[in-house]
């Protein structure tokens, strides 16, 4: 029970950082989304020790553990587009499928090449 309360409070803290990130994005008219700004902000706070690691760790680990679940509602949104998928969606889904694998192979290949060079050096 106490663990649940602690995680809840920590998730609240992360939500606050998300909110600040959105604020920064809005004020600065940045092309970078608020959630990513919040990520940078938290990383900065952790590196500088302003926020000790233990403060938000439980909440962060919990959110990352349930991350796939958080996509569920957006995924279910597909049901509103069933007729679209019958007509054009199949072709586009094919494009996304092939392109995703291409992105994966290209990025992994480049990443491996650079990492190996570093390891050999």
């Amino acid at each position: 029970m106490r663990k649940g309360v602690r995680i809840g409070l920590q998730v609240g803290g992360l939500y606050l950082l998300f909110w600040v990130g959105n604020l920064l994005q809005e004020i600065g008219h940045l092309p970078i989304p608020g959630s990513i700004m919040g990520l940078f902000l938290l990383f900065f706070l952790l590196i500088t020790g302003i926020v000790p690691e233990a403060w938000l760790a439980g909440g962060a680990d919990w959110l990352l553990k349930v991350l796939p679940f958080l996509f569920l509602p957006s995924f279910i949104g597909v049901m509103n587009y069933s007729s679209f998928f019958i007509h054009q969606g199949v072709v586009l889904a094919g494009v996304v499928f092939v392109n995703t694998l291409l992105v994966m192979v290209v990025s992994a290949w480049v990443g491996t090449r650079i990492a190996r060079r570093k390891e050999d050096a």
Partner: protein
Amino acid sequence: MMSGWEQWAAGCGFVVMSAGVYVLMKELYRRYSTPLLLPVVTAGVVIMMVLSVFHIPYETYMQGGQWINQMLGPAVVALAYPLYRQRHLLRRYGAAVLGGACAGSLTALVGGMAMAEAAGADTKLIHTILPKSVTTPVAMDLSQQTGGIPSLTAAFVILAGVTGVLAGPYVFQCLRMQHEVGRGVGFGSASHAIGTSKALENGEKEGALSSVAMTVCAVLTALICPLLV
């Protein structure tokens, strides 16, 4: 019309139902551990079937679903933790992640645009699928900004995630790409947070690299995508 209290109760009901179905599907996945039973996919299909059988519109479901959606932002913020814990990796593999993520983002945007055009998609649809390789909140923002259809973008983001998680391990195996760094970068660049959760299953190192790649890709795509369209 439902009263405020009834809406709240219905929302809670949908959250509990989603969580229940997800936990069951996760158990199924654990028991038969095949990527085809990826919990987000099976749970999604089950809930869609339940909603259509009882004629519940998606908008009604979203009274509860939006609360789950709300947690996506703080979850992206939480990715600072694996980054921080694996910061020594960044010093060692920063260039590899950055290089791989740049190559991946360009392949996603330029390659995606060319392929969609070749497939005969109109401008609105191209703008809908273009940001599909990055995490949902970012992709939906970009879709909105460039004149795509954000909720449809969300579906393609999931598809990109699921594709990477389902087919990625086979592709890496076939091409003999088993370098931890390369795999992490690949999962993060192509399949954002869904890929990252898969990479985390393989190890905290791979997961951390994946989350860095996903973050770099999100930032790069946010910068490049509006210029392309």
